[in-house]
């Protein structure tokens, strides 16, 4: 299983179906969909909204300790 680490969120490329719900629910627009990838921009407030709405368990907000 290959996961790409980002600043705050882990995105699982294999599970992701690119429905971009996460990009749209993010209240601070910290996620973007660019060149078939979900990329994280600075500004994540760790609200877990993307993780709660993802139907494919493809995105996870990293726990505070692991950062």
């Amino acid at each position, binding site marked *: 299983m290959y996961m790409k680490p980002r600043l705050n969120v882990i995105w699982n490329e294999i599970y992701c179906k690119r429905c971009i*719900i996460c990009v749209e629910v993010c209240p601070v627009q910290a996620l973007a969909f660019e060149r078939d990838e979900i990329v994280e921009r600075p500004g994540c407030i760790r609200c877990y909204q993307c993780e709660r709405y993802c139907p494919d*368990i493809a995105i996870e907000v990293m726990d505070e300790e692991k950062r």
Partner: protein
Amino acid sequence: MIDRSYKKLLKLNRFPHTWCPGCGIGAVLKNVAIGLKELGWNEQNTTVVSGIGCSGRMAGYMNLDAVHTPHGRALTAAEAIKTVRPDLNVIVLSGDGDLGSIGGNHLLHTFRRNPDITVFCNDNEIYGLTGGQAGPTTPEGTKTITSPRGEHHQPLRLNRILTAKSPCFYARTTVYHVNHFKTCIREALLYKGFSFVDIISDCIELNGRRLGFKTAHQMFKWFDERFHIVEGVRDHLENDELGIVKKEAEVEVKAEAKTEVEGKLEVLIEGLKLLTLEELKHFDGTNGKPIYIGYKGNVYDISASPLFQGEKRMRCHIAGKDLTRDIETAPHGEDLVYHFPMVGRLKVKAEAEK
């Protein structure tokens, strides 16, 4: 930190699952798994049954014993499992077409027999797997592949049908209102009896696109416009409301019995006892004592009530207490109390005056 142990209940080796990008079924699967995990239900004590359709695939992704039944027969299989193994928790994960149209007959009769199973219905208002035909819950006027000029017929109002008798548990929620969704799942799993959670979900590929939505999130916003959450436990839900309907078993008082009790009332008035709240506490039905409750300064003997049947408490009502305030806030009226013989008066006021 959030708890991700629910993943143990999912067959992650089969992921990514088969549903379209943005399909609400994934959210249903995930939230049900979270709900089961929170209650500690696992492969030891839980079975999941599902029917046919996109939503019917859900059971296959659960790390639990699962039955994939013929179209519409999920409820029959679930009821059979529950009858043979009452110790198992049985949940049904299926679609609106599967439960409401092809399995509509079973839905009515399973509801009538009230077995202790929990049904999660992924209500995407369409037949998903077969290509987006109008289903039993498709709203009137919706354009689908089989109704290009808008559906003529009225949808099946599950909120009316499944709350028509008591006891019943019916909850409606959407995949967008996640907190409400989780509460409904929890309440439904904990409810003893037939509980049905109607989850308004999105079929973006075959329904959403035709309706003009570009992404699943736009459909979520549309759900937010169409529905609003109502607080608390209700006895019915309007067509645009999200909430929980829970009704307890009705107390059937026959017309004949009523007159008899009324006759008794008059006779008893002469021999009334004066009881303080302390004395009232003794009459809680233990050791063969009668069950008394206080109401508006009077004491009633409710031993005959089928609801208290040798129990100290009937849900929120406790025997041997002044229930004036409880009954005022209860969903039923005070007339329930007046069916029982009055045996005395409460000495609360007299004490207060002293």
